[in-house]
C-alpha cells in the first residue's frame, strides 16, 4: 500500500492521535492539577471543569527551597555542561583530526566506561566525596555529571568534526591560514551547531539526573530531582502545589528535548543509529 486511500489515512491519523494523547495524558493531567485549588486537586470524582488559579505557582515561587533547588539544578547543569565541553572539544578535535592507530580503541574504551552501572561505583565515590568534603556540594555533582556525560559528548562531537570536509581545511591552508585562523574561521563556525546540540543534550541529561543527585546531596546542593523526590511522603494536601512545582521543573527540558530529538538519538546510541 504505497498510496493508502483517504479513508485509511484518516484511520491512521485518528489512531496515532489517540495514542499521542494517551501517552501525553499524565503530563497534561499534572499540568492541569497545577492550576487547581488544593481541594479541587484531590476531589473525587476528578474535577474536569474548574476555575483555574495561579495561586500555586505564586506560592511555589515564594517558597525559598523551591527557588534554591531550581537554582541548584541550573548551576549544576550549566556548570557541568561547560566543564564537559571544555574537556570534550579538544579531545574530540584531536581524535578527529590527528588520529593515531590507537584512536579507535581509545574511543571505544571511553564508551565502555559509560556502560559501567553508576551503582557499582556509588560506594567509593560517596566515600571519596565525604573525605574531601564534596558531599552535598555543587562542585561534587558537577564533577559526577561531567564524568557521566563526557563519553557521550566526545562521541557526538567526534562525529560532527569527522563530517567537516578536509578539502575545506586544505583550501584555507592554501589561502595562507595558520592553525589559529583555521580553528577560528573554518572549524568553529562549522562545528558550532554540533557544539550547541551537544550542549543541549548535556543540559537535558544533567537536569534529569536522579541517581547521584539523590545519593550525594541532602539540602544545600539538592537539585530539582532530589527536591521533588522529598515530596514522596503521602502529603495528600499539597498535590496542586507539587504539580505546579513539577510543571516548572520539567517545562524547560521538555522544550529543549523537542528541539534536540535527532542529537538525542545519535548521542544515546553512540552514532550507531542515524
Amino acid at each position, binding site marked *: 500500500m504505497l498510496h493508502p486511500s483517504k479513508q485509511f489515512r484518516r484511520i491512521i491519523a485518528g489512531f*496515532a492521535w489517540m495514542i*499521542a494523547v494517551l501517552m501525553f495524558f499524565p503530563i497534561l493531567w499534572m499540568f492541569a492539577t497545577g492550576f487547581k485549588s488544593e481541594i479541587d486537586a484531590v476531589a473525587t470524582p476528578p474535577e474536569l471543569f474548574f476555575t483555574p488559579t495561579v495561586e500555586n505557582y505564586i506560592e511555589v515561587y515564594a517558597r525559598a527551597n523551591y527557588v534554591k533547588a531550581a537554582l541548584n539544578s541550573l548551576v549544576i547543569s550549566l556548570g557541568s555542561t561547560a566543564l564537559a565541553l571544555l574537556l570534550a572539544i579538544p579531545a574530540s578535535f584531536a581524535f578527529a583530526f590527528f588520529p593515531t592507530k590507537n584512536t579507535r580503541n581509545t574511543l571505544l574504551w571511553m*564508551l565502555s566506561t559509560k556502560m559501567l552501572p553508576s551503582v557499582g561505583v556509588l*560506594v*567509593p565515590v*560517596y566515600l571519596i566525596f565525604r573525605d574531601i568534603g564534596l558531599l552535598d556540594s555543587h562542585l561534587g555533582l558537577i564533577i559526577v555529571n561531567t564524568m557521566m556525560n563526557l563519553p557521550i559528548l566526545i562521541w557526538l562531537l567526534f562525529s560532527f568534526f569527522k563530517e567537516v570536509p578536509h578539502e575545506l581545511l586544505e583550501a584555507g591552508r592554501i589561502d595562507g591560514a595558520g592553525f589559529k585562523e583555521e580553528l577560528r574561521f573554518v572549524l568553529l563556525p562549522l562545528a558550532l551547531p554540533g557544539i550547541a546540540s551537544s550542549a543541549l543534550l548535556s543540559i537535558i541529561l544533567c537536569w534529569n539526573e536522579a541517581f547521584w543527585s539523590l545519593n550525594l546531596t541532602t539540602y544545600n546542593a539538592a537539585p530539582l530531582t532530589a527536591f521533588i523526590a522529598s515530596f514522596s511522603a503521602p502529603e495528600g494536601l499539597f498535590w496542586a502545589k507539587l504539580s505546579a512545582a513539577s510543571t516548572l521543573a*520539567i517545562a524547560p527540558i521538555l522544550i529543549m528535548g523537542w528541539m534536540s530529538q535527532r542529537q538525542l538519538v545519535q548521542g544515546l*546510541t553512540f552514532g*550507531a*543509529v542515524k
Partner: protein
Amino acid sequence: MVWMLIPLVMTFWFSLQRYQLLSPQTRGFNGGVNFSYLMTDPALWAALFNTILLLSSVLIITVGLGLLMAVLFSQDFWGRSVARILVISPFFVMPTVTALIWKNMLMHPVNGLFGFLGGLVGLPAIDWFGDWPMASIIIIVSWQWVPFALLVFLTALQSVDRQQKEAAYLDGAGALVVFYHVVLPHLKRAIGIVVLIEMIFFLTIFAEIYVTTNGGPGLATTNLAFLIYIKALLEFDIGVASAGGIIAIVLANIVAFFLMRTVARTMDE
C-alpha cells in the same frame, strides 16, 4: 579517563574488606566473606530476580510498542509532527516527577484517576503499589522508555530503502510481507542497540523505586541498585555493598561486550 578506574578499583578493594562505617576500627581484609555473605542472603537473590524481571518486562514492552508506534508515526498524517512531540515527551520528564505523577495522581487508591475510572465500570479500586508493586513499576518505567525506542526506530525507519520497498509492492507483496522482509531486517541493528542500551539503564533503575515503593513491600521491588543503596547508605556496610557493586558491574559488562561489538562494527563501516 583514569578517574573512572579509581572508583572501580576501590569498589573491588572494598568488596574484599570487612568495612562497616558504624564500627570503623574493625576494618580489615576478609577475603571473599562479603561475597559469600551476599550469596547466602536471600535479599540478593530476590533483588537479582526483581532486576531481571523488571528488565525483561520493560524491554519487551518498550521494543514491541516502540516498533508498532514507530511504524504508525512514520506514516503521513495530519498534524504528525505535533503528535510526535506529544508522544515522545515522557522521555524528557525527570524520573522523580514521573514517579510522583503516577503514584499520587494516577495510581493512588483513593484519589487516583485509575481508581476513579475503574469505579465507573464497577471495578474495585486497586492499591497499585500495595498489591501490584512490580507491575506498577514496570508500567511507569515503560511509559518513560517507550518514547526512546520509538525515537530510535523512527530515525532508523527514515533510512529504509524506498526503492526496495516500492519494488516489493510492485511485485505484489502485501504490507505485512514488506514489513517483515524489507523493513524489519533494516531495523535489526536499531533494535539490537535499543535492547542493549536499555538493558544497561534498566540494570540500575533507582529513582522510580526510591520515590514510589522504596523497595517494598518487603523486598517485592528491591532491585540490585536499590539493594546496594540499602546496604551502603542505610546499613553502612561498605564491604557488602561493594561486593554487590561488583556483581552489578559484571552483569553490565556482559551486556556492554555485545553493545561494544555492535558500535565498533558501525565505526568500521
